[in-house]
């Protein structure tokens, strides 16, 4: 916290010595933020972005975990989709945007495609490796205790893989967030990315920096609230971290 205050102080001093217009200080940025919160522009944009993220990320999580499990345990899925998944991972998510725009038009569907494709594969690969690295002894022991079929999956394999799946989900979240902002910045109306673009068009550097501060704050907050505690709790009760 103290370190953060120091950074803001350095920023304030630095902005005084330069061009206030191109390099506004923390006070200008705070003012821009206040104005745009009051006008409702920022809250609306944040709400819009988070709603999009929630939809796209949920799809990614469900499909990604299912696909990862299938890749790890079903031979023919690995043989067919395995190479495709690895190959597609090489494509930065925003590169899907032109294709998505042509297919789905300038709308919600296109941005969801970008968000899903941006985060799905990292969740898939993390889940696959989590399931693959389960100690085989646990599965053998479970079988001697009469666990098989769906119950072996739900009660043993998925819980055993959970720490890895949670790490993958966390990674997927940051990828989804980045894909969303890139998409919004480039083409799609509404959302934080567009406010950023608006700031550039109006030469309102205070607004541009303000939105960037909001992006950082949201990223940190969501990572902490959604995943920080969850990951720590899982790792601790799985015995992966010493309490």
């Amino acid at each position, binding site marked *: 916290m103290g370190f953060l205050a120091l950074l803001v102080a350095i920023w304030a001093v630095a902005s005084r010595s330069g061009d206030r217009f191109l390099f506004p200080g923390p006070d200008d940025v705070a003012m821009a933020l206040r104005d745009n919160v009051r006008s409702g522009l920022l809250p609306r944009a944040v709400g819009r972005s988070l709603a999009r993220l929630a939809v796209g990320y949920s799809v990614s999580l469900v499909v990604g975990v299912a696909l990862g499990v299938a890749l790890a345990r079903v031979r023919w899925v690995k043989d067919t989709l395995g190479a495709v998944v690895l190959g597609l991972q090489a494509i930065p998510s925003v590169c899907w945007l032109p294709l998505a725009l042509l297919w789905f038009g300038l709308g919600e569907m296109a941005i969801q495609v970008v968000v899903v494709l941006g985060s799905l594969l990292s969740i898939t690969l993390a889940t696959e490796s989590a399931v693959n690295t389960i100690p085989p002894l646990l599965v053998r*022991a479970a*079988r001697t*205790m*009469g666990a098989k079929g769906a119950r072996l999956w739900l009660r*043993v394999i998925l819980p055993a893989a959970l720490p890895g799946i949670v790490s993958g989900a966390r990674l997927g979240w940051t990828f989804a967030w980045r894909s969303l902002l890139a998409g919004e910045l480039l083409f799609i109306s509404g959302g934080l990315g567009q406010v950023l673009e608006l700031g550039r068009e109006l030469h309102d550097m205070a607004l541009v920096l303000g939105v960037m501060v909001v992006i950082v704050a949201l990223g940190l907050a969501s990572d902490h609230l959604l995943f920080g505690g969850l990951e720590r709790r899982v790792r601790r*009760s799985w*015995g992966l971290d010493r309490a």
Partner: protein
Amino acid sequence: MEPLIALRGVTKSWGGAGSALALAPVDLEIGEGQFVCLCGPSGCGKTTLLNLIAGLESPTSGAVTVRGAAVRGPGPERTVMFQESALFPWLTVQRNVEFPLEMAGVPAAERARRVERYLKMVHLWRSRDAHPHELSGGMRQRAAMARALVGEPSILLMDEPFAALDAQTRDVLHGELERIWLETRKTVVFVTHNVREAARLGDRVVMMGTRPGRITRDLAVKLSRPREANDQDVTTLAAVIERELKIEIEKVIREELDDAWTPAGGGLPGAAGRDLGGGI
């Protein structure tokens, strides 16, 4: 009378047909209530034999039967304890011990009663809410023992369950296992490479050799119980078993190292007159 467990002409090879046998044709009968130790050097197939009885592996040829019925996969009347506890790290000790009962569909009230009984039997009732990683190695094996017993199987299969523990903890757990066995009279098949452990625990010690894995000797142990690790009789018996196994163990070492290795005490080959006074 039909023995509880019977293996007839059982072989196992890991490759396809025609590859080397990990287990030569083995015949073995184990009667109800016996405590049988399978003892031999690494690579003799003792763990494979145990896994065949457990139903975790299937024989290449021959038949494994329990109460006359062929073994097809694992079953609740045969539980297994491994060298590592194989407890589920995400469950507490209590939930771990409850797990096989849940799989068997035992009602909740009965589950609670049984879990309490067996956790008290292994003296872990006070640690019931701990997670496995909070326990010592010995406590984890106690929990694994409770989990193996809680379903009240007729056969308990143990694959070097105490091999990773320090000597003192192992001694204590030998005593506990013997006490529990005397109390419950399960049929126990206990795999070990430790001859003292075999002599300390078994009613019967089945010795095995390598290349291919096979039974070399089947020794009945007629010592009274409870036994002590330092009983003269146990020590003597361990020495007997060790001597028997030595030939097999040397065979393994010779293959793992090279031909230059010579067994201790053998002197120099063809050099009886040049032993540098070793016999003084």
